[in-house]
């Protein structure tokens, strides 16, 4: 298998200067907001007490367990998000039905394979999102992640013929494209469109 395309960006270099610091602050504030929301949902009601308690807990969490600087450089696209969500649900149902069927099929022992899939946009965020979604949707599971190379090693369940491996590779690419279309930055979407034609899959 050959690599899908050249990697030209430096993945997630930490930003310096005022803009970088602003970004960090924005990320921290968003994380704070989510934590306060989770705290209120856990208590089951929104009240001033819960808001205050949530703020204290969230600040403590962010101080003592600081997040690695994975900043969100893209923007949310409603259409892309909707398309991703609908496909995600459909494929989750299909994958679940498939695994459930071969689980209860008497005397059936599934064969499997481990394939390597290179992501076209090897940022940390895209790597994490694609890996998460891949574990849930098609008949795949992440075994190993090579962060520097932007490589995912994927375990494919229920392989019958070599073309199944190509189909699985294609699924990874399609999923990545859908994620980028939902949350990627404009530059990433453009790179995805103008990316080199895939040599591995017909």
């Amino acid at each position, binding site marked *: *298998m050959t690599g899908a395309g050249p990697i030209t960006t430096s993945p997630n270099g930490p930003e310096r200067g005022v803009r970088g610091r602003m970004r960090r602050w924005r990320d921290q504030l968003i994380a704070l907001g989510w934590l306060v929301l*989770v705290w*209120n*949902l*856990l208590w*089951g*009601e929104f009240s001033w007490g819960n808001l205050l308690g949530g703020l204290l807990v969230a600040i403590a969490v962010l101080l003592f367990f600081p997040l690695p600087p994975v900043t969100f450089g893209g923007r949310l696209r409603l259409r892309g998000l909707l398309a991703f969500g609908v496909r995600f649900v459909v494929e*989750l*149902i299909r*994958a*679940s*039905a*498939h*695994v*459930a*069927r*071969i*689980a*209860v099929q008497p005397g059936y*022992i*599934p*064969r*499997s*394979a*481990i*394939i*390597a899939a290179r992501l076209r946009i090897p940022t940390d965020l895209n790597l994490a999102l694609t*890996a*998460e*979604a*891949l*574990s*849930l949707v098609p*008949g795949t*599971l*992440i*075994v*190993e*992640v*090579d962060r520097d190379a932007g490589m995912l*090693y994927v*375990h494919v*369940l229920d*392989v019958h013929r*070599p073309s199944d*491996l190509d189909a699985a590779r294609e699924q990874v690419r399609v999923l990545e494209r859908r994620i980028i279309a939902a949350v990627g930055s404009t530059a990433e979407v453009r790179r995805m469109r103008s990316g080199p034609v895939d040599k591995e899959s017909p």
Partner: protein
Amino acid sequence: MTPAAGLPPPPTAADRLGAVTPGAVADWLGAVTPGAVADWLGAVSLVAGALLSLAAAIGVLRFPDALTRMHAATKPQVLGVLLLLLGVALRLRSPADLGMIALVGVLQLATAPVAAQMIGRAAYRSGRLDRKLLDADELAEH
């Protein structure tokens, strides 16, 4: 012994059919409230979720090695839990419970793949997989 004169005769099939008057149909339709529909959908979701969880458990038991077992522990299991949550949400229908249920669902979606990956990686690195059942291994060539 003669039947008591005061008792009505036992209902016949014709009587029962005759009972389906327009009024009865309207009553029946009136009973199909959004709440009743939600209850039924909730019941269906609960049963479907339970069946999927059962299939996941059977898969974990029957699949040949750790990696294939993690497939059963992610896909049908996660969908099973989500369906159970949906069923509970359709039955409870109160905002406080819905918030908690949404939280459980999101955390389940976020954590199940991570757990599966950690276990899968550990299983691969310690060689706990059946290579006879593996058609290709591009990680070994790495």
